[in-house]
């Protein structure tokens, strides 16, 4: 169960003078069970890339393989692919349309042609997975709060039981509370079910805490693809393309510049706290030795 992106390019309006290269020679391997952050600013090609992964967009050149099969070959079942690679769009609550929450979540599995019993079972399971309480199941989705609506929309994709879950800016427009709740829920889901999750975001702060791997996109190409702390080493370059490392990285860098010998290899507040404590412990030790 893996996705291989092999030298994929995508050009909008290829035969006009206004051709835009949205993706340039992108190659990636997405193995099973990874939690990936896909970072880039608006227009970096990250949304275009994820739409290729479930066959909504077709590569201008290059190939994408899902479990070893070329998704653009004629006998490939695109509908199956879309159920296996679930894509949650930005502001997904804008796609809700049913009169109650439960029916809306049933839409995806129903389209897969499953039995009614199986459809309902999956819908129920998915709503539980996103942490929505039973009392909301038969309410109109439009009466829910912003954060709740978004959970329902995510459940709508989860109910298709995808192997890979892609979320495009799942926290856009939410307040900090709603943002943390959604991200925690996704992290929990990833851990419990072991599915591959690709979190598309423009915020390093959001993803640093959660993911195993960060892919940075810039101008349609992959700029970095590594573990978070390795990627944040390039914070100067990230800054240049309008992204930023987590704020703690800058704090530590700033201390370094003042001659305080702490490592800037930290991405979370806890790590920073430990590093500063260790620094003062070392200082105490050397003082004792000095005396």
């Amino acid at each position, binding site marked *: 169960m893996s996705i291989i992106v092999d030298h994929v390019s995508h050009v909008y*309006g290829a035969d006009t003078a206004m051709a835009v290269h949205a993706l340039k020679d992108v190659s990636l391997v997405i193995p099973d069970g990874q939690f990936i952050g896909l970072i880039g600013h608006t227009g970096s090609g990250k949304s275009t890339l994820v739409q290729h992964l479930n066959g909504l967009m077709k590569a201008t050149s290059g190939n994408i393989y899902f479990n070893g099969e070329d998704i653009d070959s004629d006998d490939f079942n695109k509908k199956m692919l879309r159920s296996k690679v679930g894509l949650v769009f930005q502001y997904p609550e*804008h*796609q809700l349309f049913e009169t109650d929450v439960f029916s809306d979540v049933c839409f995806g599995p129903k389209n897969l042609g499953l039995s009614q019993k199986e459809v309902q079972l999956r819908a129920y399971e998915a709503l539980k997975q996103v942490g929505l309480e039973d009392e909301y199941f038969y309410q109109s989705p439009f009466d829910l709060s912003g954060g709740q609506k978004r959970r329902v929309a995510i459940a709508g994709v989860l109910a298709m039981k995808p192997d890979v879950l892609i979320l495009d800016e799942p926290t856009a427009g939410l307040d900090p509370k709603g943002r943390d709740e959604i991200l925690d829920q996704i992290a929990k889901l990833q851990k419990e079910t072991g599915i591959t999750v690709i979190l598309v975001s423009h915020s390093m702060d959001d993803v640093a805490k959660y993911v195993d791997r960060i892919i940075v996109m810039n101008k349609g190409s992959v700029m970095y693809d590594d573990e978070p702390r390795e990627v944040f080493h390039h914070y100067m370059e990230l800054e240049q393309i309008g992204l930023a490392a987590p704020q703690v990285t800058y704090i530590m860098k700033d201390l370094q510049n003042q001659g305080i010998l702490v490592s800037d290899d930290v991405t979370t507040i806890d790590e920073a706290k430990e590093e500063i404590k260790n620094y003062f412990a070392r200082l105490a030790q050397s003082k004792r030795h000095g005396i």
Partner: protein
Amino acid sequence: MLRDITLGQYYQTDSVIHRLDPRVKLAATIIFIISLFLFDGIAGYVVAAAFLVLVIKLSRVPFKFMVKGMKAIVFLLMITVVFNMFLTPGEPLVTLWKLKITKEGVKTAVTMAIRLVFLVIGSSVMTLTTTPNHLTDGMEKMMSPLKKIKLPVHEIAMMMSIALRFIPILMEETDKIMKAQIARGADFESGNLIKKAKSMVPLLVPLFISAFRRANDLAMAMEARCYRGGEHRTKMKPLHYERRDYIAYLVVIGYLIVGIAAGKIVGML
């Protein structure tokens, strides 16, 4: 890339035609269309063609953009020509089994084809050289006498210009919702008519909700910026006739007279 679509396909460049007051262009287009039906005989159409060529040259819009509008009516054009050719009674030229092509039929078919083609090109010249909001401005001003009979002219113009602004936004939104539902396994293509209509529900419901939400937001934003209808309102870009506009009116009237006269003279000969 749906946002690049503008209604009317305005072609940006600087020309005399572009700079004309939209009212002149509106009036000229109407007169031109009427003239196509007033003129009779080859001479009139030669004059119309000459006038059209002159205007196109002055507008500096490449001719291929004019022809773009033709694609939409090719089918209509063919039907008109074929029907007229075969169904007009008169002196038969060719007989194919039971169908007859008559002399009168050919004449009507050619006339109709010329009228249609000229009509489309003529209106394209207007839309290609006038921005949609200039056009609404022009219409508002032209129709302003109708305010006396309580026609909400300003409101109609405002609605048109808001619609023009939101059409590309809603088109993009349609595209997004469609993709999101396809990602949930929706199928918008296969099936019979009833099934197809049913499959539109997951697209149309969210689209309507979004349109209403936007309308509500926009109304609030307009009120917050002191909008209270057309009264007491001033204009940032008021319409003024300039010398070139009066000249243009004269040219158009001249065209009409010459066209009619040419038809008459040729007819007398």
